[in-house]
């Protein structure tokens, strides 16, 4: 029987890619292990090897095709004695993965197109953008890179260090191109020693440089958390204001996809607990850019929490010479009258989808994107709660002592008399992140839980 060659998933979060090049043509004989094609993801170019021997019977996706979904049939391999006539139809369409839980698998099976992602809606509410500014569709990945590049051009004290940031062009390709432009002095590959290089970064900051320390993910920053908390955050205070650490610690935070307990954790509440730090959690590309530029310029240590799932998603970014957003200001993302949904980072995805569904149910939700966890812009939250009298929070982190817990406590203190219902929290479940696709989905918040929480507080 002819064997389908499928578009491979080359990373945990890959949903589609470009079939860059075929290295074989129809009729060629291949042996297992032969490189037959090159696939470009947004992170890298990867080679595809034949898994079996046979003859290439048909190439169903041409070289140069973009946005090829994972698991689409890209070619068909014939066994000895078969010919092209034995190939069935349905070329190019994604086929269901073989696992029984295929429907549940978030990324591997039949992905919804990323374009379904809502574009940033109310960015014009940021006063920093003049009316009529041209908007350019940009991925979060590019926005982060552009922010670093712009700041490195304008301030030669700024440099970036971390694992694979230079020659590899970034484990998640956030630092792509920076080595070429700025050279090895300012784009520095470190050994795999988070504790050590975080400390080296803080020392360099204390001496007046402006380091950007990239952690491959914030899970690994736990190795370095002593330097972030005890050295970076506290030195200004302990020195009576004589010296601090103007440094940015950045990298992906939270759950990616199917990477299990040790690689799927949100640290917003952890760092949000520490005076002397600023903690930034952008959602879209414009915020990622404007806030990262602000973080690099900030004279204080900033923990900048990104999300791997968001890296490849596109949003409008204003075309401006110097687009900088203030740290510590939440944004009203959607105006509504019935309930306030407070969230940040990837939590915005749930909020936006839920608000759309709730609208159909006659519930008008207001969405506040915190954007910064510390300092926490509670004024914006309280103002909204005084209007809607109801509030829920969403975060992927654990419930106990989480960001939602803090917001809930502050609302109780500041706006108790305005509340018509207790504040409810939608959070990650109180368990280590499981690996199995169905369990991972259960462990994370989802739109249904958001809707359920909103209905509970609105008594609808």
């Amino acid at each position, binding site marked *: 029987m002819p064997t389908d060659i499928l578009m491979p998933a080359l990373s945990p979060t890959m949903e589609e890619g470009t079939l860059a090049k075929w290295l074989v043509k129809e009729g060629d004989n291949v042996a297992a292990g032969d490189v037959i094609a090159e696939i470009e993801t947004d992170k890298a170019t990867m080679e595809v090897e034949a898994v079996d021997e046979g003859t290439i019977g048909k190439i169903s996706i041409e070289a140069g095709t973009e946005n090829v979904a994972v698991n689409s049939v890209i070619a068909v391999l014939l066994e000895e004695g078969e010919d092209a006539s034995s190939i069935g139809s349905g070329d190019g369409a994604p086929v269901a993965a073989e696992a029984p839980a295929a429907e549940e698998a978030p990324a591997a099976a039949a992905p919804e197109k990323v374009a379904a992602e809502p574009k940033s809606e109310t960015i014009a509410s940021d006063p920093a953008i003049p009316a009529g500014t041209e908007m350019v569709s940009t991925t979060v990945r590019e926005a982060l890179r552009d922010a670093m590049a712009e700041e490195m051009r304008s301030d030669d004290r700024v440099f970036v260090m971390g694992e694979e940031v230079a020659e590899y062009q970034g484990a998640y390709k956030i630092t792509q191109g920076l080595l070429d432009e700025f050279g090895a002095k300012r784009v520095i590959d470190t050994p795999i020693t988070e*504790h050590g290089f975080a400390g*080296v970064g*803080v020392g360099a900051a204390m001496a007046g440089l402006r380091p950007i320390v990239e952690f491959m993910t914030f899970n690994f920053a736990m190795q370095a958390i002593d*330097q972030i908390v005890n050295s970076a955050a506290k030195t*200004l205070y302990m020195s009576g204001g004589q010296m601090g*650490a103007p440094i940015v610690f950045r990298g992906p935070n939270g759950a990616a996809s199917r990477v299990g307990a040790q690689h799927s954790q949100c640290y917003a509440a952890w760092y949000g607990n520490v005076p002397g730090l600023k903690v930034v959690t952008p959602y879209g590309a414009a915020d990622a850019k404007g806030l990262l530029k602000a973080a690099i310029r900030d004279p204080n240590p900033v923990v900048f929490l990104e999300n791997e799932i968001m890296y490849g998603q596109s949003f409008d970014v204003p075309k401006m010479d110097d687009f900088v957003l203030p740290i510590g200001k939440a944004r009203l993302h959607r105006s509504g009258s019935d309930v306030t949904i407070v969230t940040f980072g990837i939590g915005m995805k749930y909020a936006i989808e839920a608000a759309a569904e709730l609208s159909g149910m006659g519930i008008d939700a207001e969405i506040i994107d915190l954007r910064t966890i510390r300092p926490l812009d509670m004024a914006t939250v309280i103002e909204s709660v005084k209007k809607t009298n109801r509030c829920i929070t969403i975060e992927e982190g654990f419930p106990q002592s989480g960001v939602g817990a803090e917001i809930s406590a502050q609302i109780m203190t500041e706006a108790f008399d305005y509340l018509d219902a207790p504040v409810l929290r939608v959070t990650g479940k109180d368990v280590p992140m499981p690996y199995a696709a169905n369990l991972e989905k259960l462990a994370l918040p989802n739109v249904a839980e958001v809707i359920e929480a909103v209905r509970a507080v609105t008594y609808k």
Partner: protein
Amino acid sequence: MAQAAKKPRSKSVAKKTSRKPAAPKTPAPLDFKKDEELHAYREMLLIRRFEEKAGQLYGMGFIGGFCHLYIGQEAVVTGMQGALIEGDQVITAYRDHGHMLACGMEPKGVMAELTGRKDGYSHGKGGSMHMFSKEKNFYGGHGIVGAQVSLGTGLAFANNYRENKNVSCTYFGDGASNQGQVYESFNMAKLWSLPVIYIVENNRYAMGTSVNRASALTDFSRRGCSFNIPGIEVDGMDVRAVQAAGELAADWCRSGKGPIILDMQTYRYRGHSMSDPAKYRSKDEVQKMRAENDPIERVKQRVIEKKFATEDELKAIDKEVRAIVAEAADFAQTNPEPDPSELWTDVLLPVEQGEAV
């Protein structure tokens, strides 16, 4: 041992190694001139008297928390400081009073920080273990064992980045030498040829655990072997030996050869902190060290022998030092506590202010 007999082989090995820069050897102690001996005497005596006074103030309740005295180790910072030039940075852990005085920080400001007063170097917000002086290039004063080693490596990184000739003097103890981040830092320092002098103040006890009970390899000069960082053993009780090693190490760093380790063999007379009764060693051991190897006494003997000064002239120095320390202690006891409003300052810098310098 069998290979030792094969002469041709050992020859070829010798040839190979001769291409590498010669590994530095422990230099002979410097031949201090009169003013150098007297300067060292005065500097060490200031640290000794300061620490004795700090111990008294602790006992009287003026100093709280943890207080780690430097008595016995004075030759290390005093000798090292003699090897430094303007702009070189100093960083250490929490046994830091001696380093600050050696860096030229005001005894009054240091003592007032120990008592938690408003004119202490950190306005009373740092305390004994967390003090800094941007002006004197003293980068702390750190309470976490080993953390200062990565930070000090970062200071050296900044020197390298700015392409200046400064070196980072990064001090740590025999106890900190076993921390993981120390080796992470060694690796990066060598990899990037950073100008950092790693100064191990081996005072033989990691808190209450003797070096033999805590360290698999007690020759700290060899702790950089895995990274090809050279190291030398130094008599840390002889200020001339320390300064000779310091000058060698500083030259090594300034000439672009990267990091170097100095294994300072020293001794602390007091407990780990004021609350340590030091039951883990005998009184005789301490007494023997004081009697035979005291860094200040050794200078004093040479000064008298070489007739650089008379007993009376040395006593006059002692008197002058005591007066400075008494003034610092008086200041530290009478200086007001920080204003309550100070609680809320220096947490974050305003964004407009720019850099924290």
